[in-house]
């Protein structure tokens, strides 16, 4: 197990190193002068020279790459050209908000997706199965941006059931200031007993979380259905039926546990995907997460910030993959020997 773990960790480090180099190369290939982006469109030659010196843009590419890697290893992810703050600080502020949104979406996706998958497997080939398969196909294929606008227009602007945008009612900053520990507003509000902000955050979470949940819920439902059907056709299921257990009991009491293993792996991968998929949703619902930060960075050609977001997302993917591999390695010893 230790050898397997070391090998997988080594591969993960190599992937991250590759992403770092690729990110750096892309940053330098992007046309335009980062010094202009930092100093402004009307900067004087002296201001541009100062900006170039500050970011080492006059150094050779290998020297710049070495400085970039050295700074990254030292925890310095560079300085954002548009916020003028350390990129790491910006990401630490934006990422928890995305984590909160995607976390809520995944809870919804699991709570909805797994029961739907079970129901579809239970009524395989019948009307419930057909409607669940069509719904999950729609949930997977509908563009999130469109879905976000549609839900916002209908349920927030039209019916007024939910807030239009934002993370929570900003007036609460005055009436119920929040003590921030994790930067995840709902968690901080819960642990500090700040019920007004907690309730407001939950209300603001509903629509964007539902939109982000659409894709993972659809995928989870489909995967759960497929895994349950496969599992319920195995020998042990025949024995359970022979012992007099009904079809629902066979599925939920015996087939569900082994069938959830691939679903769990899927959830880990879908988590990283949802972070990126949520960027457009964050833009529509004005959620102060990574998506808005990334959009601002792209708009202002802020290469250090774009690189920071890229690297963070790459690390998330690598960590999610690594976690899946390790879990599978523990569950199924055959994986370790591959």
């Amino acid at each position, binding site marked *: 197990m230790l050898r397997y773990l070391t090998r997988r960790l080594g591969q993960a480090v190599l992937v991250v190193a590759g992403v770092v180099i690729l990110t750096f190369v892309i940053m330098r290939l992007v*046309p*335009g002068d*980062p010094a*202009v*982006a930092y100093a402004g*469109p009307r900067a*004087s*030659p002296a201001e541009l020279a100062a900006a170039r010196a500050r970011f080492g843009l006059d150094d050779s590419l290998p020297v710049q790459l070495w400085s970039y890697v050295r700074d990254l290893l030292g925890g310095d992810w560079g300085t954002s050209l548009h*916020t*003028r703050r350390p990129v790491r600080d*910006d990401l*630490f*502020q*934006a*990422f*928890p908000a995305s*984590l909160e949104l995607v976390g809520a979406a995944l809870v919804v996706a699991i709570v909805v997706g797994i029961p739907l998958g079970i129901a579809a497997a239970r009524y395989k080939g019948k009307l419930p199965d057909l409607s669940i398969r069509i719904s999950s196909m729609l949930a997977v294929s509908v563009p999130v941006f469109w879905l976000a*606008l549609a839900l*916002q227009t209908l349920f*927030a*602007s039209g019916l*007024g059931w939910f807030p*239009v*945008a*934002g*993370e929570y009612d*900003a*007036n*609460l*900053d*005055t*009436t*119920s*200031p*929040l*003590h*921030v*520990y*994790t*930067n*995840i507003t709902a*968690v*901080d509000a819960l642990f500090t007993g700040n019920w*007004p902000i907690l309730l407001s955050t939950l209300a603001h979470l509903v629509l964007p979380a539902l939109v982000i949940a659409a894709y993972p819920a659809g995928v989870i439902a489909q995967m759960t259905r497929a895994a349950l059907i496969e599992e319920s056709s195995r020998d042990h299921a025949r024995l359970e039926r022979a012992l007099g257990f009904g079809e629902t009991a066979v599925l939920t009491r015996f087939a569900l*546990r082994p069938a*959830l293993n691939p679903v*769990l792996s899927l959830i880990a991968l879908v988590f990283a995907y949802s972070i990126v998929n949520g960027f457009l949703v964050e*833009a529509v*619902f*004005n*959620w*102060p997460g990574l998506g*808005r930060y990334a959009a*601002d960075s792209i*708009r202002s*050609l802020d290469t250090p910030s774009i690189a920071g977001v890229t690297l963070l997302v790459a690390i998330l993917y690598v960590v999610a993959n690594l*976690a899946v591999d390790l*879990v599978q390695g*523990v*569950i199924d010893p055959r994986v370790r020997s591959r």
Partner: protein
Amino acid sequence: MRWHKRLLAAGAVAVVALTSACGGGKVRGTEDSPQPGTSQSAADATFVYVPNLDVVTDWDPASSYSNEIIAMENVYESLTRYNPQTKKAEPRLATSWTSTPDGKQWTFTLRPGVTFHTGKPLDAAAAKASIERTMKVGQGAAYIWGAVDKIEAKDATTLVFTLKYPTALDLVASAGYASYIYDTTAATGDLAKWFNEGHDAGSGPYTIDSWQKGQETELTLKKFDGYWGGWSGAHYSKISYRVTPELTTAWQLLQRGEVSFVQRLNSQLFAQAAGTANVQTSQTPSFQNLLALFNTESGPLKDVKLRQAVQKAIDYDGLVAALKGAGVQASGLVPDGLLGFTPGQAPKQDLPGAEALLKEAGYGPGGKPLDLTLTYAQGDSDQEVLVTLLTSALDKLNVKLTAKPLQWTTQWDQGKSKDTSKRQDIFIMYWYPDYADAYSWFVNVFRSADPISFNLSYMKNDGIDKEIDKLPELTAIDKAGAEAAYADLQSKIIGQEAAVAVPYVQNYQRAFSKSVQGYVDNPAYPNVVFVYDLKPGA
């Protein structure tokens, strides 16, 4: 399943640990907030402004040169404020001013009894110190004080500027950037660092309440009780800046009455806003115009006839119609509201005229084909409309226009290229002045420059240069002479040299709540709402 539980537990611990490292027990919200659960006493007097971009990049009033102007103008004050109706600077921190006949010495009388938010008095010595620091820092728009040779505080309310050359210093002092008067003694250590931690040292009606970079409500300002203008009558006591990049979302927030003012909507939403009961709209020409700069130095447009032909090919009326209110016809190079505006000069499309000029040069229908290149701002839908109309019009004249949308830095780099073969034939860009003086267009865009900065028509004309150099003095001491000089220069640059076409002047289209009373857009301060001047209604 035990492994799953362990994994979930480990994940939860990791997430909490990771994010705990990011947080650290800070309070998010206002420093003097009431206890949780208490009600907000003046919620109805909060003005909620919706910008599309982050508000603050730089809090230092010396170097600030970005979107934060929308907050800074409510926190800081300048000696004067520009009035586009009278085309003159009006009193703000200075109650009056005089200049010597040669325009080289200016004496400002300061308003007595003004205090900074730090509690210290704003007198002539403090004003001198702040302008001198801005000049020393030398960043952003600090160059506006370039004419200043010496500043003297004669007494508590008298500030005397001695200039190296004549300049309209009352206009300079009204600038939206770099003209702020602030308390230079506010911090004991590094003042720039202190500012950028979210502190202010202004004298304006509002002071910083909370600043949370990256949050949706990025900034809140609260009223400064000691403001010299007082707080009698109805005023907003708070300003909240709620960053909303998505225009549809901004519109929905306004419709629902959750915000007071939306900085920008697209033409479709703006039309919708105009017909909505609880919303009012305002449309005001800005000081920002679009320029199509023709390459006078190299390439086919070196021939003035071809430049004039392209000028005539632009469908000015069609463009303004297609912009649906986002743009207004230009008349000359200087927008209305500034000294130098020349009414009655709105250009018209003249395709027969363009064809005749092309024929004279050997091109046009039946002649040699002509290929032209154009660069414009990527993602700017208004510029795209111009490009589409111009491409279509030129196509009828046997001219093929290759238009490239580029990021500004790329477009600018290409335009400045030392290798003239890499430059474009037509460069599209916006221009606006840093303070209410038309000189900005002429000295930056049309005066000879080496290396090239913004003179992207590459025009080199000694006679025009000399006329441009006389403008500051004329503006300072002879307004009528300045008007005549501006008219003459525009006639030469647009008419004789045909170095530029001005397709339109941008309009500011604002949508705001019916409850907001007294809003007037001042194009000298782009996107700024002077909230103290407003009255909160029902």
